């Protein structure tokens, strides 16, 4: 009688294989999309030239107007813009959004170009009115699967930084050459607004 010499797998390996096959589904879900939501929100406002020019113009105008408009506009604007986003999320219709955004660039460019100095409430109302359009159009464009809160955080931070950039650039207003440069920049923004309007109506 001869013994069977066929090699057999070690018992430990068989046991390990069986245990692996007995794996149960892991109920955990990873919190994916968190950073993506934040980065999308951060990127969104700077990806549209209409939004960029309008936000920077608000800062430039605030710098031209000086205090108290200089600090009132950055405090009020994010909340008004978020109100526009809130309306968009609730599905409240706001006709002519793209036209409103284009007109905002034209008017904000013109007030900077002409260094307009209306009463404070008029300036706040003008900026607030157009802020609603910008929030409505841009604040609700969340890609599927991304975190809404972090998208909103990124969106508000990016818009606020654009605004602060405008204010920082506007500090050149203290020099005569700087004033001319600011007014020229306003004219360029107004011309770009005409181009946006053409695109919106055609």
């Amino acid at each position, binding site marked *: 009688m001869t013994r069977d010499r066929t090699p057999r797998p070690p018992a430990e390996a068989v046991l390990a294989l069986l245990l692996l096959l007995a794996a149960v589904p892991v*109920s955990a879900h990873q919190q994916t999309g968190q950073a993506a939501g934040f980065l999308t929100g951060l990127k969104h406002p700077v990806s549209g030239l209409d939004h960029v020019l309008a936000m920077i113009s608000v800062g430039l105008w605030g710098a031209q107007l000086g205090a108290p408009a200089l600090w009132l506009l950055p405090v009020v604007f994010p909340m008004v813009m978020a109100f526009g986003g809130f309306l968009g999320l609730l*599905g409240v219709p706001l006709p002519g959004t793209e036209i409103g955004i284009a007109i905002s660039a034209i008017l904000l460019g013109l007030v900077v170009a002409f260094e307009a100095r209306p009463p404070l409430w008029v300036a706040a109302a003008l900026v607030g009115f157009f802020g609603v359009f910008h929030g409505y159009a841009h604040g609700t464009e969340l890609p599927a699967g991304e975190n809404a809160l972090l998208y909103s955080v990124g969106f508000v931070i990016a818009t606020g930084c654009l605004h602060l950039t405008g204010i920082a650039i506007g500090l050149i207003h203290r020099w005569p050459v700087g004033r001319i440069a600011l007014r020229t920049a306003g004219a360029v923004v107004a011309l770009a607004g005409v181009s946006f309007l053409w695109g919106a109506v055609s």
Partner: protein
Amino acid sequence: MTRRPLSLLGAVAALTLLPTPAHAHLVTTGLGPLYDGISHLFLSFEDLLPVLALALLAGLNGPKAGRLALFIAPAAWLLGGLAGFASGSPLLPGTVTAASFLVLGGLTAADWRLPSSGVSALAAALGLLHGWLNGASIAEAGREALGLVGIVGAAFVLVALLAAFVVWLRPPWTRIAVRVAGSWIAAIGLLLLGWGLRTPP
């Protein structure tokens, strides 16, 4: 090495490969519930931003308001957290946290001068609401209540540092910067509320 220890070693190695249901949802650091709680506050914007707003508001309202908020908010957070943990279910929609963003951020943006009792009441409301939600989530996830201590400790340190910093600020433009931060938090809260109320298309 004899055959028996080898078998035992193999069995232990195999058992370590056996996954178990994790049921995880809250952030885990691998360092235990206390550190999970600490990291939760810093990684969860729905809790972090209202705490920042409270610290900014308390700082704008002076040292007395800051001192009261420093102790009342964490105490209320722990109380609410234990109640939520005992309840085991949040009962409230997560969107309710938008109220903290809107109220605290809005008051900071407006630079609203409140009596110390007003700041204390807001600190208590914030702590109870967010603590309740945290405690209920921890219980739902089957985790230890010790995580609440981590959250409360982190909130205490955050309020202490930020409120003291705001109280210390002197140049007028720094007060405006604090108000701008408050307006950003309120704006995020308004959008958060919109996302919560939104009906899917």
